């Protein structure tokens, strides 16, 4: 039952094969049984989920047709959900019951989906291993000594372990695609502005974008149909109609032009992993695609640019956590400055503090031009590389991350090695492009993800390419646990 895809659950519910209550109960039981070891959930909303399921069953009986009606899923704990604890993985918000819904949460409610709970994540989405969460690290279901990736590690691990058929997630520098890759599931980061950021706790405003983590590309299309859309509450939301992302899934890939950025296959990439990626690309050739090498000459700049822009934005996005209106406040402050300083020092974890310091530093007087302005200029160079590449090809392909899942604690000592985890994913965030990671093989029993990058608003083409691959391969069906 838990191996069913979102699409299968949806049609099973409509056909009356099972009820929403039954399937919801099934996943809740699985969470109760398996999650104590994985730690992929921060909050399980059992009562609300069952109440929603009962409601959904009534609506199904009444003949209502929404695609996700009665289908269970989980939210990354970065999305504000009304009357439900919303922590962003931080002690700072460990007591924050949101008084309002994010647009993503509201959209999924409207679609009739049933919320199982809130998934674990790196604190304020800052991390690539899920080890910075105040609520403890998440274990990779393929090997519980290893990390699931991050920051959407809880969402990826939960889908991989089939604790939920789908989960929402967010991606600022690779936080959907890298954990999807490390956990062997499908993770889609849409074009910047495609999904509303209202109610999504901000990390870096000009980079953050929400998307789904699912078993299959078809399920990602189903989720994106519900999540995407113009939102007047988000100034950066794009006012463009949302197509049915399932419509083009079965298009032929014959003649599709795929570019391989040579910089993605240079030093730093595990040769065995490279071979796995090449095999996946061969599969595309068999499907009729034309493969071509392209260049993104400025891609080496993407990690440094990111580590100026993201900390700069986060350092001020996190200033609102001051102990005044919500969230953590230190005990017995002696005065206002003491309250600010102790609240923030005690409420934030080390990695978050590190990034606040970097961000404050690069924005401070005397350094702004050398760092922030320079990074913004270099960001345009990076975007231009992609724009040029898409004049020649329809899609870009390469690895999602330089290596499969690494061991817990392996990279925590040196922030830099952790930052390099996102070397292949960060460029798309800087450019605002959509990208997807799909399971494309295994290395020593650990999943390897293939990253596909599309042009602006080309999510349908991305999903089409991913779906076609999943029609001829089974990597997305392999599971770590029964």
């Amino acid at each position, binding site marked *: 039952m838990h191996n069913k895809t979102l699409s299968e659950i949806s049609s099973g519910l409509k056909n009356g094969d099972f009820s929403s209550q039954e399937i919801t109960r099934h996943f809740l039981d699985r969470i109760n049984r398996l999650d104590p070891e994985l730690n992929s959930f921060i909050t399980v909303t059992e009562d609300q989920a069952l109440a929603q399921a009962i409601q959904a069953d009534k609506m199904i009986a009444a003949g209502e047709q929404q695609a996700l009606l009665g289908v269970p899923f989980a939210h990354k704990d970065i999305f504000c959900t009304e009357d439900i604890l919303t922590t962003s993985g931080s002690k700072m918000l460990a007591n924050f019951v949101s008084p309002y819904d994010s647009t993503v949460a509201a959209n999924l409610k409207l679609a009739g989906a049933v919320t199982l709970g809130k998934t674990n994540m790196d604190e304020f989405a800052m991390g690539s291993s899920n080890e910075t969460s105040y609520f403890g690290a998440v274990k990779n279901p393929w090997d519980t000594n290893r990390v699931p990736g991050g920051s959407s590690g809880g969402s990826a691990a939960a889908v991989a372990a089939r604790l939920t058929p789908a989960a929402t997630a967010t991606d600022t520098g690779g936080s959907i695609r890298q954990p999807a890759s490390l956990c062997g599931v499908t993770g889609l980061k849409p074009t910047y502005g495609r999904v509303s950021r209202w109610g999504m706790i901000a990390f870096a405003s000009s980079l953050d974008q929400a998307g789904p983590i699912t078993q299959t590309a078809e399920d990602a299309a189903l989720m994106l149909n519900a999540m995407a859309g113009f939102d007047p509450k988000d100034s950066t939301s*794009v006012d463009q109609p949302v197509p049915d992302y399932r419509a083009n899934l079965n298009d032929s890939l014959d003649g599709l032009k795929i570019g391989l950025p040579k910089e993605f296959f240079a030093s730093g990439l595990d040769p065995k992993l490279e071979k796995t990626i090449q095999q996946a690309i061969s599969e595309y050739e068999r499907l009729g695609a034309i493969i071509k090498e392209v260049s993104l000459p400025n891609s080496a700049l993407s990690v440094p640019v990111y580590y100026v822009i993201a900390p700069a934005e986060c350092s001020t996005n996190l200033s609102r956590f001051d102990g*005044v209106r919500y969230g953590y406040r230190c005990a017995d402050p002696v*005065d206002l400055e003491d309250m600010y300083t102790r609240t923030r*020092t005690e409420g934030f974890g080390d990695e978050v*503090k*590190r990034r606040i310091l970097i961000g404050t530093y690069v924005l*401070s007087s005397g350094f702004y031009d050398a760092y922030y302005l320079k990074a913004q200029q*270099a960001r345009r160079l990076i975007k231009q590389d992609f724009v040029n590449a898409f004049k020649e090809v329809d899609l870009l392909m390469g690895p999602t991350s330089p290596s499969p899942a690494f061991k817990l604690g392996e990279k925590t000592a040196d922030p830099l090695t952790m*930052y390099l985890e996102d070397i292949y994913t960060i460029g798309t965030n800087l450019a605002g492009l959509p990208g997807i990671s799909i399971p494309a093989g295994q290395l020593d029993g650990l999943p390897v993800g293939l990253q596909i990058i599309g042009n602006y608003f080309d999510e349908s083409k991305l999903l089409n390419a991913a779906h076609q691959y999943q029609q001829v391969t089974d990597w997305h069906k392999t599971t770590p646990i029964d």
Partner: protein
Amino acid sequence: MSIDSKEIEKVAVLSRLKFDQKQLNEVTERLTSVLDFIDQLHQADTQGIQPMAHPMDAVQRLRADKVTETNQRDKYQKVAPSTENGLYLVPKVIE
């Protein structure tokens, strides 16, 4: 670009964060390595390049001047650490 612990302390004050001496040394060491790494940025030739603040180079949309919010003070203050008579309380501010 090397950064000394004095500068880190200044930045920490601006960020309202506090570190003891041991932590400060560790943070300084880690930030130095990160900043060294970031310095690769300076190899980029960005002369004449327009800075890019948003990926789409889009334009601000305008909101109609209408009151759409209603009073929900009780709901919003349920999550507040300290309130009295509808006000948020903080330690005495000295001007």
